[in-house]
């Protein structure tokens, strides 16, 4: 080794200083650029979805004065049987005819009747069922307009003439008249949040899919969290390190990388064909998603168990705590925030999962809101998939709105994760 003088050493350091600083700047620049790119992508995505979907949260309604005329309804009293075949559509039609008395001719009348959603009759029936005293009286109510009307009215705010689409000139005239007199308004779209799916866009809602998603996630969480945590604890704290546990570890890592549709096929073969569990049910969906999220939860739980300082284990063991007590009293509380974070990330993945659920029949057209984990139901991402595939124009905005609901659920879950971690995290 040659002996360097102190000056020589200092000169050599100084010579490299500029390039070191340059590299550091470059590195920082790259970091900022990549973050900017990410933020931009998120912004574009959100603007696109919100600009398309925001209009789905309002819905054009039409105000009508309806008369519960026993003659028109064809019933004498309000009971189950008569309600079942009472002609509520007739009442609506009568109300429309009354509003526009000049309309004559079959074609024109049909055109007139199509102003209001054909779900209006059901609403009326429900109203009369709850208030039987209304029979023979009349009242003023708001009804959902047909989706074509809705599309036209919404397009009016964008351009002067609006987008007529399937709406005739004459119909447009009626719409403008109603709008002028305040009998046609855009109001908050409660239907979207209270109904299940429907072939009619104005009656289609997110409720069934949302509840289905929640049931499915509940099944997934209840199964995958305890099983995953127990497996992680066993592997990390109790299992001997030998070829078998190595094999298990490798397989868990492999499972995490298996395409989710494979889990769907597995679920179809095992849960539906072999155990004959009901198709399209959140129970089966939850089971399949449990298989899918288990590796994620096991891996993240093991990582958080590993991060508990060994000195804590030693301290507890040195006090004479049994292995079980070491885990329960010391390791688990410290690892819990990490485990929960992992579980919530797993749940978020499960929430957005579509492919395996298609395999077990959750793609069916489900109108009713499920009441339990064995009721047929659909889930949010599948609902989005179904709506995106529908030809009606009004489903476009509903698709985006459903995506917004899905994102809102995701963001809520992630916020919970952060909050839980902050709350449970303890320093040592």
């Amino acid at each position, binding site marked *: 080794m040659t002996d360097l003088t102190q000056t020589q050493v200092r000169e050599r350091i100084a010579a490299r200083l500029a390039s070191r600083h340059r590299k550091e700047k470059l590195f920082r620049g790259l970091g900022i650029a990549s973050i900017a790119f990410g933020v931009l992508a998120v912004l574009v995505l959100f603007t696109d979805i919100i600009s398309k979907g925001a209009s789905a949260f309002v819905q054009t309604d039409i105000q009508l004065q309806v008369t519960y005329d026993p003659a028109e309804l064809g019933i004498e009293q309000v009971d189950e049987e008569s309600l079942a075949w009472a002609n509520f559509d007739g009442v609506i039609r009568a109300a429309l005819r009354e509003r526009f008395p000049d309309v004559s001719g079959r074609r024109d009348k049909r055109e007139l009747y199509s102003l209001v959603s054909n779900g209006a009759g059901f609403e009326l029936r429900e109203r009369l069922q709850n208030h039987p005293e209304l029979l023979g009286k009349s009242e003023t109510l708001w009804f959902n307009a047909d989706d074509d009307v809705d599309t036209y009215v919404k397009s009016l705010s964008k351009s002067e003439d609006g987008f007529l689409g399937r709406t005739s000139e004459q119909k447009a005239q009626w719409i403008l008249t109603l709008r002028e007199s305040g009998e046609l308004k855009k109001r908050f779209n409660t239907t979207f949040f209270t109904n299940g799916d429907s072939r009619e866009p104005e009656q289609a809602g997110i409720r069934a899919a949302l509840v289905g998603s929640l049931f499915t996630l509940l099944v997934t969480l209840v199964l995958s969290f305890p099983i995953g945590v127990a497996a992680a604890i066993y592997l990390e704290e109790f299992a*001997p*390190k030998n070829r078998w546990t190595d094999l298990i570890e490798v397989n868990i890592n492999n499972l995490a990388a298996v395409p989710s549709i494979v889990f769907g096929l597995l679920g179809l073969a095992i849960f539906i064909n072999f155990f004959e569990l009901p198709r399209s049910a959140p129970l089966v969906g939850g089971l399949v998603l449990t298989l899918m999220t288990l590796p994620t939860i096991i891996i993240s739980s093991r990582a958080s168990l590993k991060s508990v*300082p060994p*000195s*804590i*284990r*030693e*301290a*507890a*063991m*040195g*006090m*004479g*705590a*049994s292995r079980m*007590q070491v885990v329960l*009293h*010391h390791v688990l509380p*410290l690892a819990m925030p990490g485990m929960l974070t992992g579980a919530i990330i797993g749940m978020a993945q499960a929430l957005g999962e579509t492919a395996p659920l298609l395999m077990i029949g959750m793609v069916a057209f489900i109108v009713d809101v499920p009441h339990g984990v064995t009721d047929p139901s659909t889930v949010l991402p599948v609902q989005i998939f179904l709506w995106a595939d529908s030809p009606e124009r009004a489903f476009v905005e509903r698709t985006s709105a459903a995506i917004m609901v899905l994102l809102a659920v995701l963001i809520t879950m992630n916020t919970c994760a952060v909050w839980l971690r902050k709350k449970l995290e*303890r*320093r*040592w």
Partner: protein
Amino acid sequence: MTTMTLNAGEAGPAEDQTANPASESAVEQSAVKARAANTNIEVTGTVGSPFCDDAKLSMRNVNVFYGEAQAIHDVSLDIGRNQVVAMIGPSGCGKSTFLRSLNRMNDTIEGCRVEGELTLDGEAIYGPKVDVVPLRARVGMVFQKPNPFPKSIYDNVAYGPKIHGIASRRAELDEIVENSLRRAGLWNEVKDRLDKPGTGLSGGQQQRLCIARAIAVSPEVILMDEPCSALDPIATARIEELIDELRQNYTIAIVTHSMQQAARVSQRTAYFHLGKLVEVNDTETVFTNPEHELTEAYITGRFG
């Protein structure tokens, strides 16, 4: 320093060779001589007086292995009742390994195997029916790095009594906590903040908290593995005082890197070298008139 240990390491029975000539040129002349001398010393058995009459812990022909590697070679030693025995020796000579085999903390290390006869009050420590839980309650441990639980000061001390079911009532537990903290000389400093986290204390206070935690279950033996190595001189002095007081009620085995500390707190000193127990004697004898050449080399600072 490390090269010396390494070279001395080659002085096992298998290969008996002289020091590496390449590094020789770089080191001071006198040290070379000392090392060359040490290198050729073979440790055969323990000199001094490893046994005593009233032994609390007694170890005979202890061998400890980590997988294939042997960390402790045929060590026999008695630790007398209410006695402080210091274990000294260069880094990596197996002091911690030996200490941890006394309360079976080595059981928790994968691949670690302990052979030999170890008894506590005449009962085998590694007997087939021995439960480590009560054993560790009888033989407590204080570690090198203070490691309080991330819980309150109170809960730290109360943990042992709780898991062993020692206190039946809350008042009794309170009393145990207070007494333990008093005996560890920490009570006055923490009595107003028992519900604050133990990890918020200073290093020296944390170590005294760990001692309080260990004595809360009234152990018979306390093992200390370099308890002061992470502490400043003032905190160290406090712990040393404490050890001296604790001797009245407990039997203590302490590993230390500081020879002054060994001299101050212990009655007997054991010198380990490369997994072998070289010499055991009264502390005074070891530090003033060591019997073995290696001991002398170590205490005079020629390696370590």
